[in-house]
């Protein structure tokens, strides 16, 4: 179904307002700049295709997150062998965002964070990305399609796992 000129403008405006979501999800599921770029384009394309079914009364970021995560999980499953969908902490080699982008030096914590995310499976990554983005349990449950209780239980376990990994990494340094 084709979008009218007005709808297209609305789509582009909304996506532009929330374009950070595309970047964050791509950063969570792709480790090289080329993969991040491909994934971003794939997410934008699916958003465009899904937009005719978007209901304006629903929050746009929630809708956008759902599409972006679905595309990203499929991308990861398609482009990575199952054994490589979760990568041991000490085996991860990341290609960090282009540093010409900003004046800041690479933060060790950013590196650590990306390494930690890469150790998680596709569904747990989604959960952690939403947690890092400060979404409420209710929002996470809506986006993922599981109960709030399930979100709380899983997050508590994941946070504990992350704490242990952080400690292990820091001890190793």
């Amino acid at each position, binding site marked *: 179904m084709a979008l009218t000129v007005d709808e297209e403008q609305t789509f582009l405006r909304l996506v532009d307002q929330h374009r950070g979501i595309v*970047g964050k999800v791509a950063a969570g599921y792709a480790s090289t700049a080329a993969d991040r770029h491909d994934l971003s384009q794939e997410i934008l394309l699916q958003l465009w295709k899904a937009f005719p079914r978007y209901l304006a009364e629903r929050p746009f970021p929630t809708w956008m997150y759902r599409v972006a995560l679905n595309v990203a999980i499929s991308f990861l499953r398609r482009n990575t062998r199952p054994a490589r969908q979760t990568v041991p902490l000490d085996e991860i080699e990341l290609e960090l965002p282009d540093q010409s982008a900003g004046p800041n030096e690479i933060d060790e914590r*950013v590196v650590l964070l990306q390494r930690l995310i890469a150790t998680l499976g596709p569904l747990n990554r989604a959960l952690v990305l939403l947690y890092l983005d400060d979404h409420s349990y209710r929002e996470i449950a809506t986006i993922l399609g599981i109960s709030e209780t399930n979100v709380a239980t899983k997050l508590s376990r994941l946070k504990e796992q992350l704490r242990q990994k952080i400690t292990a990494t820091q001890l190793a340094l």
Partner: protein
Amino acid sequence: MTTTTLDDLKIAWNELSQKLEWQNALALRQFKETKLARFRSGFRPLVLGQLSQLIIGIGISAFSATYWVNHLGRLPLLICGLLLQAYGIMFVAFAVRDLFLIRRIDYAAPVIEIQKELAELRAWHLRAATWHGLTGSLVWLPVLIVLLHGSGADESWISQPPKVIWLISSIAVCLGLTYGLIRLAQSPGRCGRALRESWIGSTVNRAQAVLDEIEEFEREAG
């Protein structure tokens, strides 16, 4: 050395988002200039594979229906026509189910729901491929007979004992090979393991592993 906490990671995540900001803007601009322009000009990705399968299936069904109706009095040709029609119907049914599964996927639905639908689609593709392989190893016989008949050969040759023996043994060999391959794949030996770990085997396992992973993610609330 400072100790990193989860809150530090949240801050780091926001910093990372800021670092990626110009790349996000670039990605959106590129999307507008390339992909969107192509969409505007009427480009639509079609499910070409399934549509062509549907057309081929309808073609086989239509041809074979006419064929067996015209050969009601000739048993071998009637059987061949019916077998081909069943094959054509299977083709159509598989294509229709494929199209239905693809069309119902709405990427804006909750993540678990869509991932499950995608995994089911993948598993269905694999099952369909097995059926295509199995029927494909047998369907050449009726096709051959129909083609020979179409080229002017008298179908009475099918009733000749040596030909009947040849036909029956060909069917038996095809079925035997397929059965043997399935049994071998189930066996615990080295060959069986090699077959299970081959492309098809690992793809089946992979599709099942994804479904199991989703189920576990959904269930693990306790």
